Structure formats: structure tokens, C-alpha cells
């Protein structure tokens, strides 16, 4: 977690170095994000003006095109994301069709699992468990027919509540939700997790031990 941390910007670095670091940070953030990343968010995290972030992204996008990489940096739905170059679609299609990749991403599967075990559940509750905005993923799952709106919260705001569908049960070969494998015994309490975390300060490997 970086809250509180300062990003590792070398204060003595020259402007060119600083810009190079900012650009590689942008590349890294966009690479792992599941949804297009708004420039405003990146600007905030890097403590840089939005206009600079946009300029750097454009420069990156240009350099990819110039060097004929297989990926491009596209501005989609208000954010930046990596996507494959249009003319390479035939290769990508072959690849996607190759069986092992016809499945949900880890993030999507985790969201689906949360909905399955905690339904009915609101978007905000999913977000608080996963720690990230589940909007895009929930949309995908709904488009596939694995989850659906099952009601409205009675509280203020009347948030939409999600649950799994018949399709979900069918695809997993389940008769009913009662057939989901139990998980409670595998989930440690927060105190255990914390103790583990603290007890586990692995000593750096020490070369003379191996002598």
C-alpha cells in the first residue's frame, strides 16, 4: 500500500529523468488496471497536473505506434488502456479461442465468488471487500448472465442488490446455492491475518549460512 508512502522519486534527479520515471509509472499503472484508467486518477497519484499526464500518455501512445508494437495505448471511456493493434486481431482471436483462455479473469472470478457467497449484495459492499471499484467487472458478469439485479436495498439510496442467476448454477453444475462448497473454515479472522503478517519477517538470506 502506498498511502502515506512517497513514491520513490529521486529528488536530485534531473527533469528528463523525472519525466522518464513518471512515464514508466504510467505504463505500469495502466498495465495492471482492469478498466481504463482516468488521467485524473493518475495525475493525483503522481502529484502531477492532468495536462502533463495526458501529454505523456499521448507521447507513449505515439512511440508504441512508431515502433510498431503489437499493443497500443488507447483512450477509451474516459481513460487509458492497453489494447491489441487492430490488424493483429486474427492472431488474438486464435489465441483467445485456444481453450485454456476461455475463462473468467481472476478479478472477475473473485467478484463472482463474492456475489455467490454473499448475495444479495450491493455494488458498494462488493467494492469494500475487493478494495477496488467492481463496476466494469459486474457489467461483464451481468452481460454474460451470471449475475443479475435481484432487488433493492431498503435503506436510504435503495442500492441495487446483485445475486447469481440460474445460468450461473447451470454452468457450474449446481442444483442450488446450498451446493456451493463451504468456505468459512478456510477464512482466518482479521486478527490471525495480522499476527501472521507481523510474525513473518523473513530474515534476508545470509550468504555465509550457505557456506
Amino acid at each position, binding site marked *: 500500500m502506498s498511502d502515506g508512502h512517497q513514491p520513490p522519486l529521486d529528488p536530485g534527479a534531473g527533469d528528463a529523468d523525472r519525466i522518464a520515471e513518471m512515464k514508466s509509472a504510467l505504463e505500469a499503472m495502466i498495465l495492471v488496471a482492469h478498466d481504463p484508467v482516468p488521467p485524473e486518477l493518475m495525475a493525483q497519484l503522481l502529484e502531477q497536473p492532468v495536462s502533463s499526464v495526458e501529454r505523456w500518455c499521448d507521447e507513449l501512445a505515439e512511440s508504441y505506434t512508431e515502433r510498431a508494437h503489437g499493443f497500443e495505448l488507447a483512450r477509451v471511456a474516459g481513460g487509458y488502456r492497453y489494447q491489441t493493434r487492430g490488424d493483429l486481431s486474427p492472431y488474438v482471436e486464435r489465441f483467445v479461442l485456444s481453450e*485454456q483462455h476461455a*475463462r473468467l479473469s481472476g478479478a472477475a472470478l473473485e467478484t463472482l465468488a463474492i456475489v455467490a457467497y454473499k448475495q444479495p449484495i450491493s455494488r458498494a459492499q462488493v467494492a469494500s471487500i475487493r478494495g477496488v471499484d467492481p463496476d466494469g467487472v459486474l457489467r461483464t458478469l451481468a452481460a454474460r448472465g451470471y449475475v443479475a439485479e435481484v432487488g433493492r436495498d431498503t435503506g436510504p439510496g435503495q442500492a441495487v442488490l446483485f445475486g447469481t442467476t440460474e445460468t450461473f448454477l447451470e454452468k457450474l453444475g449446481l442444483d442450488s446455492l446450498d451446493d456451493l462448497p463451504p468456505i468459512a473454515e478456510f477464512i482466518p479472522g482479521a486478527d490471525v491475518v495480522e499476527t501472521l503478517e507481523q510474525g513473518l519477517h523473513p530474515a534476508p538470506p545470509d550468504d555465509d549460512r550457505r557456506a
Partner: protein
Amino acid sequence: MTIDVSTEVYTGPFDLLLQLILSEEVDIYEIHLARIVDAYLDEVERLQALDLDVATEFLLIAATLVELKARRLLPGRADVDLDEELALWEERDLLLARLLECKTFKDVAGVFAHLADEADRSFARSVGPDERFAGLTPDLLAGTSLQRLRNAAIRALTPRPVPVVDLHHVSPVRVSVADAVVELLDELPRAGRIGFRRLTADLVERLEVIVRFLAVLELYKQGVVELDQPEHLGDIEITWTGGTDVDADELTIDVYEG
């Protein structure tokens, strides 16, 4: 010699024995076996539930140790049965081999931790194809087993540890009352009379101020300063009364553990 195993994460009798022989660098025969047993029993108690496997495992080790020790205490070897002697050596070699194996994997575990820490700094992209390719795979759940869904649920629902900043590398502020006394013995005779607030004006850490305060009380106890606090919660006035030649070494300073 004290054997303190309770400060270590105890993960079994081998660990304990390894720790005793290697880190303490002792000859196992020069310490009382009773102490190892006591330390062990304390651990078992701490673990709340007695694990029979652990207990018997340790009994086996303890028995071997007792026998080895008894053998060493014998005055001579002329009367020793050769078969028994051989069996004992065999036991010992077995124990030795197991300790070596245990140590080997302990060291490997350190390297694994290092590898994992390095790998943890990089984050893999696992975004998948964008929506242009979504139509190609009508059923994304086809390749998903219940096991995979269950594991995803466990991953997602396991509480995340609250991140803490690791302060291992930061050395704590170490201020001792004795050091503060030495400073005051230099400063107070020159000042003659000074308020506590002024005396501590240049200190940043609250702990340093407290230590100074304790040092002043020490000096009061030793009779080399007078204290006066005219107002409730007001500044404390410190007046040096000790003359010019007070040496810190001559004062007996209480040691505060902190």
C-alpha cells in the same frame, strides 16, 4: 545459563534442539535436560492443546538425549555391551541426520522468503482480452471448476492485513537519564538558575523532555539543585546549589528501563 524459547516462534522439538545446540553453542551435556523439558512443557502449555504427535516426537528425542547423557556419565566403558553401544550410536546418527535435514530446509525457507519478496514487487497483468473479443467465448464459466470458485471466494473474503510501515531499520531514540544528568551537570552550574521550559526548549521528542525531567529529579534527590514551582502547572525553576565540582561518576543514578 537461561534457556528462553518463549521469545522464538517455536515450531517443533527439532527447532528447539537446533536452537539450543547452534545458537547457544552449548554442549547439550552441560545443560540440565530438565531445563529443556521444562521449556518444552511451557511451550506445549502455550499451545493450549497438546498435540500427541509433537509430544511423542519430543519424548523420543528426550529419551535419546537422556541415554546419551547417561552413557557419558559412566565412569568407564569396559562393561558396556557392544551391541547397545552400536545401537546408541545409530540413534545418535539418526538424530543428527534429522537435525541436519531440518536445518537445511530452514535455510532454504529463508531463500524462498527472499524470492517471494522479490517477486511480490512485480505485478502481473491478468486483464484478459478486451470486449472486441468477448463474443468469441460464449461461456466463460466452462473452464471453471467449483474448486476454482471456492478458492476465489477464500482469496476475496480473507481479511486483508492492515499495512504497517516496517520500522525495523529505524533505530529508536535512545536517551538515558544518566546521559541527561551528565548534560545537566555541564549546563546547570553555568546557568545557575533556569526555568525547566527554557532548559528543554531545544528538545524535539517528548521522550527527551521526560528524560530531562527525571534527570532533574535525580539531581534534586542528590541535593545539588533546588526546585521551585510558584504557580500550579507553571514553569519549574531550577537553582544549582551543588557548587562547582560535582562529577557524574560520584552520583548514583537510578536506571530507568524504558
